[in-house]
């Protein structure tokens, strides 16, 4: 097309940056987080203390690390319910390594590699056999933890080297724990990968329409496989942290973490149906869940009552924009 009558110009975007930022999911989460923070500081005199706030972060860092990878996985239209079981298996393997006299670097490697291996196993089942991930990972959830039970039975592994304690208990600078540091670094990496790389773009495309993505030259199965591996990897890292924090391994470790990580992802505005979401949302959701559980903990509210708050928060925060749109849309 050498010369054509000036083609119709289509603008890049119709920017309304302010209003779109104000009505975004993240803004809603910021409001919720600030509100809870304020309520907490009023409700308990112990809340506004650097060490309290630092301890608070331990309530969510491990789960949030998994939630980052899980967010990518859910955006791509899959899910992994086996993450907590992966933690158990990885921790058990680390325990075996300790028994065999392994030092801290080897332990960390074992934990991460076992996590990666479990993730790859999930990924293979889902992509190679074309099975629905929710079912596959319900199966591997029992399988992985079951293997941990077979190995450990009623025993526990302990005797982790003193230097190993750093990962789950150490502080990098003043009140900034290693876990918090890792959480922040991971948040930046995942934000970059999801929102600034072609890999992330492909993840969104797969989540919105896997078939069209495949026809467009996206290697759908490969990307999904990588995402399962990533989720396994993050579970492995979380396993190192939690094992280090507890200083021991039981097969029942990290029970129920999968639902909390998924709750975090969904609360963070990631569509459970795939195709939409942001890392910033997940970070905010992690803080919110930490604030709620710690704040109520300071008031000695039983954990189960906190979970009511989390459950309500989940439903309300998701229902609000829907109701709002319905009200605005009239009728």
């Amino acid at each position, binding site marked *: 097309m050498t010369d054509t009558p000036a083609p119709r110009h289509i603008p890049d975007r119709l920017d309304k940056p302010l209003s779109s930022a104000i009505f975004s999911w993240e803004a809603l989460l910021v409001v919720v987080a600030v509100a809870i923070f304020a309520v907490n500081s009023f409700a*308990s005199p*112990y*809340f506004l*203390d650097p*060490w*309290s706030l630092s*301890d*608070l972060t*331990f*309530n969510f860092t491990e789960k949030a690390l998994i939630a980052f990878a899980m967010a990518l996985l859910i955006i791509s239209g899959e899910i992994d319910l086996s993450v907590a079981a992966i933690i158990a298996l990885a921790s058990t393997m680390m325990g075996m390594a300790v028994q065999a006299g392994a030092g801290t670097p080897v332990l960390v490697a074992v934990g991460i590699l076992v996590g990666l291996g479990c993730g790859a196993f999930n990924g293979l089942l889902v992509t190679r056999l074309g099975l629905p991930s929710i079912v596959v990972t319900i199966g591997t959830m029992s399988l992985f933890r079951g293997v941990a039970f077979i190995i450990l*039975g*009623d*025993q*526990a592994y*302990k005797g982790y080297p003193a230097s190993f*304690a750093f990962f*789950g*208990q150490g502080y990098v600078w003043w009140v900034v724990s290693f876990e918090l540091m890792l959480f922040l670094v991971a948040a930046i990496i995942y934000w970059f990968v999801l929102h600034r790389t072609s890999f992330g773009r492909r993840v969104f495309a797969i989540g919105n329409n896997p078939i069209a993505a495949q026809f467009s030259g996206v290697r759908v199965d490969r990307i999904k496989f990588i995402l399962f591996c990533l989720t396994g990897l993050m579970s492995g890292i979380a396993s190192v942290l*939690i094992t280090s*924090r*507890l*200083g*021991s391994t*039981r097969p*029942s*470790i*990290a*029970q*129920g973490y999968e639902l909390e990580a998924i709750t975090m992802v969904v609360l963070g505005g990631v569509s459970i149906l795939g195709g939409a979401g942001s890392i910033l949302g997940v970070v905010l959701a992690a803080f919110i869940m930490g604030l709620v*559980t*710690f704040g109520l*903990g*300071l008031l*000695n509210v*039983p*954990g*189960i009552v906190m979970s009511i708050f989390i459950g309500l928060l989940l439903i309300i925060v998701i229902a609000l924009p829907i109701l709002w749109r319905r009200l605005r849309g009239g009728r």
Partner: protein
Amino acid sequence: ENVKIALVVKSLGNGFFDAANKGAEEAAKELGDVDIIYTGPTKATAEAQIEVVNSLIAQKVNAIAISANDADALVPALKKAMERGITVISWDSGVAPEGRQLHLNPSDTGLIGETIIKLAADYLPEGGDVAILSASSTATNQNAWIDAAKKILPEKFPKINLVATVYGDDDSAKSTDEAKGLLKSYPNLKAIIAPTTVGVVAAAQVVTDENLIGKVNVTGLALPSEFKKFIDNGSSQAVALWNPIDLGYSAVYLAYDVAVKKEEAKPGATLSIGRVGKVTLDDTNSAAMAPPFQFDKTNIEKFSKIY
């Protein structure tokens, strides 16, 4: 400004711990300047208990008296508490020595181990097969009692044959399945020993349902109020337990001794536990409160009204 003592239990809602809390409140009243924070997770896991401990640290309580879900996993969190100047003792279900200043056993471990076997043996003059239905495989105290029981079995009760140990995880459904499995696998089973209040109820209910009353005797550790029914219907001859009210009471006294009276918790030290008396710490800084108390047809009515 009152002294804040946190009574941390394995899980909320358990009748045993609610009774212990009664004792703790009683101790607080006696001591005068004590506030009790009765808390714990709803799910009996170490991770949940750690979150509870963290919030107690933030609240700057004076002392934590904990019945732990896991002897090892809680150590780092409790160490942190001690570093921040909080007195930590464990009671009922203990924490490894480096995670607490002292531990109060409800009773002597060896004695409990012996008692649970004896409860079965008393009604089996000819001897026979027995099995243990425990709580979770990670429960510190149950494991210690079972070990003690196994140790004395050959010398003191040669005719008693322990055929299996299974775990019901303090979950009534799982305990039921396991009890049923025991009855099926060991048709000659004469007694099921369940040293846990959830398991013992499940086992007694199974024996009742399968019409094995009189053939299989259920025994173990049980709360009289929860278990009275099964003593009455004959599925169990007798069970034992210490007084949980006294246990909670004593735990608070010990915490107060260390935190406020600044008594040193070291091997050989003798500490006062109010109306219950005195305890002496052994070389792991542990002490036992009282021998287990036995309930049977003659006294269950009375105690079921108390706890």
